[in-house]
């Protein structure tokens, strides 16, 4: 595999007595959407700001596109795009003015008008920042992060506070960034967002990385349990289900069966059993564990606590 775009190795950052980041290491590869997920105060923003060169870690090493963010900040800035959590702009700056200012700061900027168009902000170009909706503000921040055609984009809590519809629209935009061949590093505390958007995620809690993998890989390794719920009115069914390999338990309530087992093959095995025994099924549902369950398993607490 080619050398990582972002390489973080054993960084630590404290604020007085607060240990914001205790020990974080991860690699991000070209063309992927990489997510840092964890609860409030886990150290996501601090980690990201160290990677962006806005903060200097107390110890550990970081390299972004082969550069040291702390020492080569200005060289790096031309090649990365940054969106900060909870950042604002001047209340009365117009959308096009912000884009124009940002564009003037880089050597080879993209066409600002086209970018606004692509992000659905064309008719807001003369609007003051303060009059934009939450989703429009985030789009503008994405535009500013993309204006220098960066190789890697950092997005901190991009969709926090947005309604589900605006959130989905932003997800599509982020996928669009990946489609252009860019690398995206984002943070979120929404498990659903990580699951749907990220190619790989790092779970971070109390300033430490607990595990890094694809969402499916994390679920497969840490939460192998699978559940199939189906409705059938065949009295022989229960015994047949019991005989399926790696089934841990079968319960039924009237005509509803709940089959608990492990491993990715469970669903296939259940379907095979149904066809072998010619069991007639009127309803069929699988319950898969999510990243939420992985988080709970790994940390012992829910991400919302």
């Amino acid at each position, binding site marked *: 595999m080619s050398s990582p775009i972002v390489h973080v190795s054993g960084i630590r950052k404290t604020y007085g007595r607060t240990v914001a980041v205790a020990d974080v290491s991860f690699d991000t590869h070209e063309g992927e959407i990489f997510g840092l997920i964890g609860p409030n105060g886990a150290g996501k923003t601090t980690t990201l700001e160290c990677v962006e060169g*806005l903060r200097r870690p107390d110890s550990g090493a970081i390299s972004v596109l082969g550069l040291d963010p702390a020492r080569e900040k200005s060289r790096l800035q031309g090649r990365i795009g940054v969106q*900060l959590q909870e950042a604002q702009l001047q209340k009365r700056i117009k959308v096009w003015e912000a884009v124009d200012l940002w564009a003037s*700061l880089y050597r080879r900027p993209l066409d600002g008008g086209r970018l606004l168009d692509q992000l659905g902000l064309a008719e807001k170009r003369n609007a003051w920042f303060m009059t934009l909706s939450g989703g429009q503000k985030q789009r503008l921040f994405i535009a500013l992060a993309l204006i220098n055609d960066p190789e890697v984009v950092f997005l901190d809590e991009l969709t926090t506070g947005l309604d589900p519809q605006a959130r989905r629209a932003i997800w599509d935009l982020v996928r669009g960034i990946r489609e252009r061949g860019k690398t995206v590093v984002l943070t979120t505390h929404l498990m659903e967002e990580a699951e749907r958007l990220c190619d790989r995620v790092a779970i971070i809690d109390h300033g430490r990385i607990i595990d890094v993998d694809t969402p499916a890989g994390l679920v497969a390794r840490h939460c192998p349990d699978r559940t199939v719920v189906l409705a059938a009115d065949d009295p022989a069914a229960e015994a047949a289900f019991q005989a399926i390999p790696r089934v841990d338990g079968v319960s039924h309530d009237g005509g509803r069966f709940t089959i608990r087992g492990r491993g990715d093959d469970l669903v296939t095995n259940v379907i095979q059993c149904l066809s072998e025994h010619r069991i007639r099924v009127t309803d069929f549902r699988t319950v898969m564990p999510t990243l939420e369950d992985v988080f709970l398993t790994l940390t012992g607490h829910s991400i919302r606590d």
Partner: protein
Amino acid sequence: MLRGLWKLTWIEIKVFVREPLGVIGTVGMPVVAFVVLSRVFGGRPTRGVARIAADVPAFGAILIALSAVLSLITVIAIYREGGILKRLRATPLSPVTILAAHVIVKLLFTAITLGLMIAAGKRYYTLPPEVSLASFTLALLFSTLSVLAIGFVIASVVPTARFAQPVGTIVLYPMIACSGLFVPVDALPAAMQRAAQVLPLTYAVSLLKGIWQGDGWSAHVGDVAALLIVFGLCTALSSRVFRWE
């Protein structure tokens, strides 16, 4: 080196003007105060108020400077609280550029306010023939620059935007009392005289009064030096204590 300075300055000018209340407060307040004072003292050449009357133009100028500095402190505090400073710093804009843009905006509006003040006060004061307007404007801009540097130090320590205005007012306006305006420094109690020596406003007042009375710059080398020292010290101090977030 100062890439983006003019664009950012132009944007800050537009952003400032788009908030009418801020403009009225910053530009209008000194002008109104000046006109009111002029009506009280300026029109009557009575003996007792003659000396006060002579100080009113310098006082007006000082009000402009303080108003500009207060506005700077407030803007910086709001920008910091809103994460705007942090957002700007995460670009290739240099920190100096970001702050310089604000200084330029404030100096520009200082000059504009002075123009308005002179226009509004025409009935009471006319610039003495031997004084050049350019010279007086320069003296004011120079004084303002020096006090703006203090503003950056204050802006570094105010905890939130809500406190910016009151803290700035409490720190800045009492300086007028021992600045030599209205009451000469020699006539002040000993403690206030000592305070006057270290406060930059004293030198600004001396410079402005002198230039208004027709002094040449050579008569005020000491004031200019003192203001330069204040500017240097405060700039150095704020570069150490300034908080971007």
